[in-house]
């Protein structure tokens, strides 16, 4: 096998694994491959995938964003409060997205201008914003929104078949794919993540790149928050706890390097789908909740461990 063939195989490894798992599940569970189950899985995956697309950018920079779950909660509560204030779905979603972007840019500024390690900076905002979500909502869920349009965002269908969250996820995937592959900004992200010093010397405004990336990550978390709020017809101040780890898992399973500079958003989509298919498949097979955790953890550990081994 030539080096080039090896590289291709390596790149598509996660995708092949996803297909292998799907084929296996199709044999084991008669319900798995049905159209409605397939769309169910994708809808379940959409929230994690949307967050993970943003997370891909921060990880490509060699950073991380631990605050996404808290940003999701704050955005969700803000959207709910806007609607409870008598405003429409458009304004509610708009405010949530803007707030998400603002919270993300706060991360970016602290990291780029304050020279704080992303792990620490976003650990701080994770805690701070979780508190903010509890303060804003007074600790209790805000439920019941009359807007039909808002209900569509999480529960609606396009052409009576494809769930709206799936459409949103695929649209976001297309945008991220295009931005990373075809734009100057995308190249700057790879350059900054690969070697920030070299990027800076060759004229890349790395501070600006960092702030933008964290802003986008915040906005994606807010979008996920809007979808979730619509789906639940309820904004929960405790929502999103632990979602940062699900997103990181999807990114890493997809082959993006935690060291930065190497990876792609297609891998992230596949990684998110792989997690979703596992969750769904293990439920369909009736595997006990305790064993499910063991299986999922083993998959993650093995994939990443062997991946690391191959790099030395």
């Amino acid at each position, binding site marked *: 096998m030539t080096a080039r063939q*090896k590289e291709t*195989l*390596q790149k*598509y*490894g*996660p995708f*092949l*694994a996803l297909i*292998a*798992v799907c084929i*296996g599940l199709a044999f*084991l569970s*008669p*319900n798995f491959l*049905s159209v*409605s189950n397939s769309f*169910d899985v994708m809808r*379940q995956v959409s*929230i994690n995938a949307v967050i993970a697309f943003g997370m891909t950018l921060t990880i490509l920079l060699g950073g991380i964003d631990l605050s996404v779950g808290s940003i999701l909660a704050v955005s969700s509560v803000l959207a709910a409060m806007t609607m409870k204030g008598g405003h429409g779905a458009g304004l509610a979603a708009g405010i949530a997205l803007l707030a998400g972007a603002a919270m993300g840019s706060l991360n970016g500024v602290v990291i780029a201008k304050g020279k704080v390690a992303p792990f620490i900076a976003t650990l701080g905002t994770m805690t701070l914003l979780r508190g903010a979500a509890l303060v804003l909502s007074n600790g209790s*869920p805000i*439920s019941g929104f009359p807007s039909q349009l808002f209900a569509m965002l999480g*529960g609606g269908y396009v052409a009576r078949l494809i769930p709206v969250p799936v459409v949103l996820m695929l649209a976001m995937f297309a945008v991220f794919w295009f931005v990373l592959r075809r734009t100057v900004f995308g190249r700057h992200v790879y350059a900054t993540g690969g070697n920030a010093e070299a990027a800076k010397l060759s004229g890349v405004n790395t501070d600006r790149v960092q702030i933008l990336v964290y802003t986008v990550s915040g906005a994606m978390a807010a979008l996920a928050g809007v979808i*979730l709020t619509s*789906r*639940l*017809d*309820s904004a*929960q101040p*405790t*929502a999103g*706890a632990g979602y940062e780890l699900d997103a990181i898992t999807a990114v890493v399973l997809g*082959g993006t390097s935690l060291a930065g500079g190497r990876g792609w958003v297609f891998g992230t989509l596949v990684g998110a789908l792989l997690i979703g298919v*596992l*969750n*769904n*498949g*293990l*439920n*369909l*097979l*009736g*595997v*006990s*909740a*305790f*064993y*499910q955790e*063991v*299986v999922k953890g*083993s*998959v993650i550990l*093995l*994939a*990443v*461990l*062997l*991946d690391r*081994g*191959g*790099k030395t």
Partner: protein
Amino acid sequence: MMRSISTWVAGLIVLIGCSNQGPDTGAGGTAASTAAGSGAVTVGLSISTMDNPFFVALRDGAQAEAKAAGINLITVDAQNDAAKQIAGVEDLIQKKVRVILLNPTDSDAVANVVKEATAAGIKVISLDRAVNGAEVSAHIASDNVAGGKMAGEFLLKRLGGKGNLVELEGIPGSSAARERGEGFDSVIAGKPGVKLVAKQPANFDRAQGLTVMENILQGNKDIQGVFAQNDEMALGAQRAIEEAGLKNVVIVGFDATADAVAAVKAGKLAATVQQKPELIGKMGVDTAKLLIEGEPVDRNIPVPLALVTQ
């Protein structure tokens, strides 16, 4: 190359994991075929969290009853996350279970998925927590009103029908606080020898139970009995009463937590009302069976409680 190998291996592990685990988890029958859905009736159970012993006991009760009845029970754990719960229930819908036993993480957040299940022709029974905004076939939960009555009657008996009482209330507006209080108040209301000298919220919290009881004792030390709407508040109040040097105050708690049961054994609390999570799970499966057989069931099924005394 390594990565492609790793992901293949990972996939393989999953498949091995699945094929090993599938047959074991079905509670009904002994043959592997039951897990595949042939023959035995399948019922789904969505638990709010398996991190809480109360809900683990509920699951165990359901599992044991399903096994006895030859029902294949599939349990999914929501890990206290409403979104995870919805995903789990959707998986159960895809699995085409006949009935879903739903223990909601949040009463409001599950309404949409209950509607989805109903639309798919699957009946839903709510356990322990109710569902707001969607119809379920039945709701099975502890009879908190009866528990409050039980506590009141016990207190009256121990005090010989007379004395000054204190009631510590849970979080205002919560269903547990409302119902437990309603039951207790109905028993002591109109009893000539009994006087409720204080009725104050301490939010189900031990530290607040302590301070609220301290404040009450500042104003009035002539107290013979205390009903706290949960054990945490009862244990806090017990501490305040002990520090104030009062003897022979009859304290009754609610929930039968491990701490409270130990305190009852040590004579610090007089009694605690015990919920029976296993029974909630068992009655859930029994009700599911009736629904599958096309029998009528009650909309509201109260689960009896027990009194733990020395």
